[in-house]
């Protein structure tokens, strides 16, 4: 899978062509994405918050799963790049009448689009689409099943880099539902690729997949021990919609054992930053005093998500395949 993704994500010059997962990319490319995002931040200072980079390009947002933050920040990023946008609401589209995914894609291709942003409940959906689209089209993964959510991971890395300056001296702790989390999978890979000093995961045994340690993370089941000396804490949402079977007694019970409280955060470094990809279940993953408190950078993450998505889309659209097409 990795080799295949490696081939499909990059063009022959090693530049971004599709953006499907962190897997198969490299440290230089992740830094390039963050550097590019940095330069897009000045666009927000403009009276007209737009640059003409993707003028005349058509981007289709294909969201087979609900999303507010990801969809709206993608849409804003596309608009700030001056692209034309189609939002396909799958619930009311022909897919719900029985059209296959590939037929939907073929029909949209026939309308001369240039990029798909895909969110899908099945792992590998974006990769599947990328392997079948016409050569000039780029595919961006907006989250697929339990597999990957690479743009979220990149905006998290960008937020960490902006506030902490780098990764080499950091202890980053990811707390929560690792099992169902595509965000955690992408974050773990990115943190490792960026050579983070120490990465820990804190989770109940029922919400921890078997591969965690293979991604270079230390596993903790006791939150107090896990938070000790942390520079960055990332809380993950309990994904009730993906939980089949009794993995947890209750949200309340989870909060008692793993919820972030002001008291618990004291075990981390005094300048710790607290992150959450959203949406937050207040009183489950963290108490409001933490979510709204001085350590929280949760809303900053949302803002930075726009420039990171501008960076990724403009890079993918300007690789060799897109430049030479048509």
């Amino acid at each position, binding site marked *: 899978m990795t080799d295949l993704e490696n081939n499909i994500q990059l063009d022959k010059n090693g530049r971004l062509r599709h953006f499907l997962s962190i897997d198969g990319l490299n440290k230089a490319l992740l830094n*390039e994405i963050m550097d590019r995002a940095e*330069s897009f931040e000045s666009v927000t200072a403009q*009276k007209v918050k*737009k*640059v003409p980079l993707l003028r005349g390009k058509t981007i289709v947002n294909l969201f087979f799963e609900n999303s507010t933050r990801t969809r709206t920040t993608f849409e804003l990023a596309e608009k700030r790049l001056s692209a034309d946008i189609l939002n396909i609401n799958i619930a009311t589209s022909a897919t719900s009448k029985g059209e296959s995914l590939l037929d939907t894609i073929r029909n949209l291709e026939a309308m001369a689009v240039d990029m798909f942003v895909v969110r899908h409940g099945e792992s590998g959906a974006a990769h599947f689409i990328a392997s079948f689209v016409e050569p000039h089209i780029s595919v961006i993964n907006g989250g697929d099943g339990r597999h990957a959510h690479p743009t979220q991971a990149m905006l998290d890395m960008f937020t960490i880099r902006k506030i902490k300056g780098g990764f080499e001296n950091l202890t980053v702790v990811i707390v929560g539902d690792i099992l169902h989390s595509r965000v955690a999978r992408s974050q773990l890979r990115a943190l490792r690729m960026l050579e983070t000093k120490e990465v820990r995961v804190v989770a109940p045994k029922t919400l921890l997949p078997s591969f965690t340690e293979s991604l270079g993370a230390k596993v903790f089941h006791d939150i107090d021990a896990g938070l000790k000396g942390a520079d960055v804490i990332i809380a993950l949402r309990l994904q009730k919609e993906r939980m089949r079977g009794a993995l947890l007694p209750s949200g309340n019970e989870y909060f008692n054992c793993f919820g972030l409280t002001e008291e618990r955060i004291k075990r981390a470094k005094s300048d710790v930053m607290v992150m959450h990809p959203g949406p937050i279940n207040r009183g489950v993953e963290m108490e409001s005093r933490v979510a709204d408190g001085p350590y929280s950078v949760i809303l900053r993450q949302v803002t930075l998500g726009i420039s990171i998505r501008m960076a990724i889309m403009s890079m993918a659209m300007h690789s060799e395949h897109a430049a030479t097409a048509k």
Partner: protein
Amino acid sequence: MTEIQHLDITSLMTNLEQALKKEIHARSLKKTLIIGIHTGGAWVAEKLHSRLGLTDPLGVLNISFYRDDFSQIGMHPQVSPSHLQCVVEGRDVLLIDDVLYTGRTIRAAMNEIFDYGRPNQIVLGVLIDRNGRQIPIQADCVGARIVLESRQRIKLTGPDPLQFVIQDFVS
């Protein structure tokens, strides 16, 4: 690559400064804002900023996101962002570049400036005005006008010292 001895930076700067002063006076420009195009234009603008005694901070424009040829030549991976601290709306602007050649850079720069606001006037000042225009854009103030062959490119290196070099392209 040849260094051009006869293009003395000091006298080019003086010529451009004089021409700008004359233009500012003739148009009665008020509280002018100086903006240099990254990178060569920004170096020149920085020098002019102090020579003209301007009070508002120097603006630097990086036009990479506005180029009309990015799909052909791609984009430099690291684009240092534009830096305009002052409001452009309603201002008198001195737009500065090192070399005026095809005119495309200036077009992109003006597109970007208008995305920050609607200036009252823009005066274009360049150190070197060379032949080879592809779109109808002309400089208001120049350090010198020169004629080069189409295979030749002139480039400002710097920032210390500033120096013009000519490169030959074999096509």
